[in-house]
């Protein structure tokens, strides 16, 4: 009887395990084997094993990788911090009782609901140096900054603004949900003790929010590190390579040059970096908690 039960259990596990193996584990192993190969797929020539060459090239002889990594890290740091601060402010304001509170809550969520590539094209049009509304408004105030997207000094920050516009609602939504779940007795007690609004926020709200802040920040770090659609739709990595993210560079190597071995090596380096950053972020927050 026990054997039959064990067999039934295994039979139930098999489809799930097979799915995981085929869809999850196999591509991972396949891409790892490719990372140690040279494969210019467009030539129609098969792949050859090159050991660690791809990884060595990435580290020692690929300025474009380092440039894209530098841009991506800066981008992630700026956008996640800004989104957290703005999201927190919005959530705090909209937990208070006020007129049109529900309207504003929905309004602030809208950017997140738009598809990323759509957001990219909308902003590309808004920031168009000749037809864009932004340059026209600036011109109306006699501010002449030609080509916010075509200037290597301003383009990275334009992308950051777009990201903040799109993803602040994510922080706002998570933090608002958490705040609404806080027991009101804590705030009543603080009020009885004469705590000011700032002290209540600093000593009650913020510590209570810490676990959700960790989770939301980590999700945003991982997600924004994969920055692709905005770059693809707005600047294509330009001007020059000033807005080329690590994802976009990997995509270019893989799907423009069809250098699939090197692209897989880049992807693995990318994965290791994300894991390392996630680990650092988690540890840091845990220590502070």
């Amino acid at each position: 009887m026990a054997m039959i039960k064990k067999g039934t259990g295994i039979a139930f596990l098999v489809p799930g395990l097979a799915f995981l193996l085929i869809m999850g584990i196999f591509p991972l192993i396949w891409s790892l084997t490719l990372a140690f190969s040279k494969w210019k797929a467009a030539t129609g020539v098969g792949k050859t094993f090159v050991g660690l060459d791809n990884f060595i090239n990435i580290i020692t002889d690929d300025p474009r990788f380092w440039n894209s990594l530098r841009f991506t890290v800066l981008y992630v740091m700026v956008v996640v911090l800004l989104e957290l601060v703005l999201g927190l402010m919005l959530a705090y304001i909209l937990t208070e009782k006020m007129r049109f509170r529900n309207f504003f809550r929905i309004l602030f969520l809208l950017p997140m609901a738009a598809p990323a590539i759509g957001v990219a094209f909308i902003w590309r049009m808004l920031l168009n140096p000749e037809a864009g509304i932004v340059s026209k408004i600036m011109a109306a105030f006699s501010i002449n900054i030609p080509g916010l997207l075509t200037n290597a000094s301003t383009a990275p920050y334009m992308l950051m603004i777009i990201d903040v516009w799109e993803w602040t609602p994510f922080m706002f939504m998570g933090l608002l949900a958490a705040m609404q779940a806080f027991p009101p007795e804590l705030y009543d007690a603080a009020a009885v003790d004469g705590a000011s609004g700032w002290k209540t926020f600093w000593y009650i709200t913020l510590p209570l929010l810490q676990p959700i802040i960790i989770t939301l920040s980590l999700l945003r770090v991982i997600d924004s590190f994969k920055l692709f659609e905005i770059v693809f739709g707005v600047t294509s990595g330009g001007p020059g390579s000033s807005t080329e993210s690590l994802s976009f560079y990997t995509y270019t190597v893989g799907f423009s040059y069809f250098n699939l071995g090197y692209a897989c090596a880049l992807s693995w380096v990318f994965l290791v970096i994300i894991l390392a950053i996630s680990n650092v972020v988690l540890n840091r927050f845990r220590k502070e908690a």
Partner: protein
Amino acid sequence: MKKALFVTLVLLLLFTLSSFVFAAGKTWESQKGEYAGKSITVLVTDPHTMVVQAWKPSWEELTGGKVDIVVVPYASLYDKMMTDFITDTGAYDLICWPSSWSGDIMGGGWVLSLKPFMDDYGYPNWDDVVPAQKNNLMWAGVVYALPYDGDCHLIYYRKDALENKEYQAKFKAKYGYDYNLPPKTWEEVIDVAEFFNNWDWNNDGKNEYGIDFIAQRKTQAQWTLLDIVMQYAAQPGVAPYFNPDTMEPLVNNPGWVEAVTVITKLAKLAPPGILGYGYSENRQAFVSGNAAMSIDWGDIGVMEQSEKEYGSKVKGKLGYGPLPGAKKTFNFKDNKWIEGYNQVNFLDFGGWIYSISKFSKNPEMAYKFGTFMTTPEHSLLDVDGAHGYTGANPWRFSQYKEIAKWVTDGGWGEESAKGYLGAIEKIMSDAKAMSDLRIPGGAEYYDYMDLHLADALAGKATPQDVCDAVYKEWQKITDSYGRDKQLKLYRESLGLPAK
């Protein structure tokens, strides 16, 4: 024995005769109902989809077949196409692609040779196709694509500005010489662009600029650079890409550095948003009247003709000419400058062409649809503006001659049509006109050129640094494809004997 021999001969005769009869029935002309219930998928970019859209209904009605169209942006075309090839998907039967990728597409063996189809079905008036265009359809002497678009860059200039006597006198007073119409050298282009930059020379209440050109990353900006490179680093019949003995890139020699210097100077004499000008923005801006000159394929000429469709404010006001030359050119063989006028015509991009995927399930049907679109009668309507701005430019001898059709069908002025077609015919008929780099990895070599050019235009790197960076990347790309193999194919593409 004799009887057996006789029977064999009779059978052979019958077989030969039947082959002739069968072949005689085959024609490139599409037949009524011949593809009922079948379909093909065409992969095409915008605006080339206009041509497919134009001929799809009548061909579907005639043959009973169905044409599905997949439109992708230019920046994604290579990815879509190669992914389909590499994964053996066969999602596309007929593909419209730029011939400058021949090394990868034809050289990679991803598309079918058209020889069997041309032998069986023929092709509508093959002799009418200009030789320069035929060359772009071939790889190692075999035709792999159907012609559809004849490509070369022209210089466009505003006649109301550059032919204005008062402005000419002022220019001479300032620069000490009379400029040519069209400007003959890039040095002259810089002076003329500087003279006409940032003031209201047509009295419309807005300032105009010196020159428009394609400068945005991933939108074909590298061809503007190559227009200049051809004059400073190539000579008629001598290509500027690699040393054909060693496959060492020539991209950081003084000729190339000078070309990058020139294009960065031109960027300062262009509208403020020039780094955001892809081919669409360049064309739209120039026909809206914002600059004195522009560099582009034949498309501006077509867009010039319609205010209603393209907002053209320059109809009848444009002059057309071949690429400007240079006062000196760098000879890589002797490693020194040659003083004196040098002008090289360049077949930028090589034209969009149609190929049949080797994974196509209906190659014959794809061939028939391709020939239907590119007959002399149909293709004329695609290039003369009758179908609007299609992205296709003249590529048949007959298209250069039928001026009256350009006037009646495309809405051109006679003088404009003559000037435009005369300039294009001169370039396309030049036996020494330079072709694009046609070796495997062509798209990758060019993408790195584009990437680093953008750094120069954005002021992030000096021309020398840019050229050195491209040199380094081209070396790496060559090694990754195999130097000897690349050298062999490069020499082949230049018509040089194997080493």
